[in-house]
């Protein structure tokens, strides 16, 4: 399974994408990452287009410390994913204003409260299941990846505090 991770995070959360990719790879799930070494001025790169097109699902991750220009990139990536009819779930830190996708595909989380996301995660998974009956196995994997991602964010915060 290939999951495209569309992300907009601050500097301290930047390693989360690579960490998620390493964990998911142990379960033969490829986390496909966009090139964030530059921010495109107009539209998405061909490379990003291809990655989204070839992915089985798209997971978005947005934290409070994300730069505005990266939020715009995530918006573009999610719009493209919608056009390709990809299953989408967005993990958005509470307090971030984001209106790129329907509310029932958004999981709001609080890195200091490990249960804050539960209700919206279940709602988002149910929504995906209702839309795609044939997608059951991938749905389990996507839910699992979402949980791991939220765990990594909490861990990142904890490590940051320790430092």
């Amino acid at each position, binding site marked *: 399974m290939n999951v495209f991770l569309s992300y907009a995070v601050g500097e301290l959360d930047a*390693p989360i994408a*690579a*960490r998620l*990719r*390493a*964990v*998911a*790879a*142990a379960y*033969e*799930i*490829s*986390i*496909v*990452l966009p*090139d964030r*070494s530059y921010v495109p001025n107009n539209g998405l790169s061909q490379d990003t287009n291809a990655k989204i097109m070839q992915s089985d699902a798209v997971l978005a991750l947005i934290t409070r410390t994300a730069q505005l220009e990266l939020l715009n990139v995530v918006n573009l990536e999610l719009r493209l994913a919608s056009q390709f009819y990809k299953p989408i779930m967005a993990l958005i830190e509470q307090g971030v204003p984001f209106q790129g996708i329907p509310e029932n595909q958004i999981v709001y989380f609080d890195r200091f409260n490990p249960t804050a996301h539960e209700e919206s995660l279940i709602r988002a998974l149910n929504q995906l299941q209702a839309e795609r009956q044939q997608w059951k196995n991938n749905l389990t994997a996507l839910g699992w990846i979402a949980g791991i991602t939220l765990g990594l964010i909490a*861990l990142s915060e904890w*490590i940051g505090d320790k430092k």
Partner: protein
Amino acid sequence: MVRSPVQRGLPYAVTDNTLLSRLVDLQIAQFLPLLFKQILIPPEVKREAYKAPHKGKRRLMKLFGEMTGFFTECNEADDLVKEYLKADLHDGEAAAIAQADITQSVLLIDEKKGYDRARTMQLTIVRTGRLLVMLKEVTAISEVRPYLERLKVLDFRLTTELFNQLLAEAGEE
């Protein structure tokens, strides 16, 4: 020192100990500067190399001594990525994958489990067989067949299919 993905010239590479020892056995490690700008060695890989059997260890130390600057010890890696990988990979393999990931280098690794993991992580990977073909392409060696034969003697798992495929890639069918 995280490198830009837009690199000019030869790429950097990170190597695993087993593959490097194999290249030393084949006496072709000295040709690597024709393919790579620098070979990065994670501390875990260096430790494993220095734990190698006496003769292999001496050869590797000699190589590091003769090609200082090309073989460079490098500590770059996300510690958590490395620890996650260590859960079911050897320390050297985990360190090499984590370092190739953060430095956006080519990963030189043969072990199946490490290779499969790195491939799932979409890293650029080169194995010994492919390296031989690349060395022929830059005319460092004239034929890959003798080296493939030697690999068999060294207990390298080389299926007949892969053996023939590499010969075909090298134009030696």
